[in-house]
């Protein structure tokens, strides 16, 4: 009985909030035209721009709020333009102009920094793409900051774990048992079956690092206000580039034979299959890259779309419907985070195993 009363009170508070919102919008004929337009402009939401803004990299870290009242952490900008130029990103004024103390003028447009003359002119050749010279931009953006942070976190965790083994090989660090179970899982289920018992130790550091890097960054990207690293195709491209380099630099003669001059096949067909196999050397790591990027980006877009739907409906009761959806999708994203790290590591181990495996000798 008490639960029903509390439920009724909460529902009525929600409904009273809804009435207030509607009265503000419908009484707009009492206000004059300018404020009505101002209200209308504030109310119109462009969901695609909002969603993309939360997914891509940027020079400053936007936490809460919008417009004037937004809380923003500005990150340092480091440029190489005949000498290092370092400044904070809140030095750009409202139009994006900034004059460095060495005399060069910079303008930020669409989150890219261009070098301009003293009038801050941008010369457009294509739509939304100025043709000014861009200085080399190696600044600390949101993604770079989170990569450094998560690497630091990983270094602390794993060094502490490895130092905590006492002489009996028992783990004394409390949370080390969790991490040790993951490491043993990778060794037993991913590394040894794919690469083989005698050769897997050489590639184990790469596999473990990849797995934990992808896992920790996937999970950190699910927190609110967090940057989205593994959903950035540049970063997943570098990870798959590492796999590509390791498989092809360690391939033995059997591997290259299987690609260009495969045994047990009539000679004419070998010429036909060789270009296809050559393409597949490049395409397989590329699929690793795109799979991870697309999974993470799609997950973030779905969660952000549900939250944007609340603003489109302009009704506070819609939070009851959409927040549980967003919560469910977030839980699914945790599963996808683990799964994608596992799949990336498994396929990398598979490719490495194909490259270094010996032909089975019949005993």
């Amino acid at each position: 009985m008490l639960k029903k009363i509390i439920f009724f009170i909460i529902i009525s508070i929600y409904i009273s909030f809804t009435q207030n919102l509607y009265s503000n919008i419908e009484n707009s004929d009492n206000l004059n035209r300018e404020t009505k337009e101002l209200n209308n402009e504030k109310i119109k939401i462009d969901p695609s721009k909002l969603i993309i803004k939360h997914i891509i990299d940027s020079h400053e870290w936007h936490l809460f709020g919008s417009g004037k009242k937004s809380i923003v952490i500005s990150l340092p900008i480091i440029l190489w333009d005949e000498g290092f130029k370092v400044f904070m990103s809140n030095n750009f004024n409202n139009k994006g102009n900034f004059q460095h103390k060495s005399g060069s003028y910079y303008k930020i447009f669409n989150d890219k920094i261009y070098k301009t003359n003293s009038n801050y002119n941008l010369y457009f050749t294509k739509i939304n793409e100025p043709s000014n010279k861009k200085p080399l931009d190696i600044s600390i953006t949101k993604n770079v900051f989170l990569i450094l942070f998560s690497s630091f976190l990983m270094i602390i965790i794993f060094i502490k774990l490895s130092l905590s083994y006492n002489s009996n090989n028992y783990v004394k660090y409390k949370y080390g048992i969790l991490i040790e179970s993951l490491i043993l899982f990778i060794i037993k289920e991913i590394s040894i079956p794919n690469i083989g018992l005698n050769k897997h130790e050489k590639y184990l550091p790469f596999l473990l690092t990849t797995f934990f890097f992808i896992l920790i960054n996937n999970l950190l990207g699910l927190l609110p206000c967090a940057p989205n690293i593994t959903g950035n195709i540049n970063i997943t491209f570098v990870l798959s580039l590492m796999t590509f380099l390791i498989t092809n630099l360690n391939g033995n003669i059997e591997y290259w034979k299987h690609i260009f001059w495969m045994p047990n096949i009539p000679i004419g067909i070998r010429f036909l299959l060789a270009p296809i196999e050559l393409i597949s050397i490049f395409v397989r790591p590329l699929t690793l890259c795109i799979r991870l990027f697309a999974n993470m980006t799609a997950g973030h877009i779905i969660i952000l779309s549900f939250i944007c739907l609340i603003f489109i409906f302009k009704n506070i009761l819609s939070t009851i419907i959409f927040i549980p959806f967003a919560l469910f999708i977030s839980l699914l994203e945790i599963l996808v985070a683990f799964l994608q790290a596992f799949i990336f590591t498994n396929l990398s181990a598979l490719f490495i195993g194909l490259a270094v495996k010996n032909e089975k000798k019949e005993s």
Partner: protein
Amino acid sequence: MNTNLIYIGFAAVGAGLAVFGASFGIGKIGSSAMDAISRQPEASNKIQTAMIIATALIEGAALFGIVTALLAIFK
């Protein structure tokens, strides 16, 4: 603006088709995995691992389609 809307409409249909194909594949994998587990419950761990790997690969393929649709919309 009109031709842009046509491109966006086709891109959305393409993304839907990609998901349609992926769901077919994953459903088939799930059903055969359940048949296999019911026949031999001791091997259910290995079957589950293999099912999850196959699911992730099919989802990767479906997301290629969605990435292409996104590229078509935002260019």
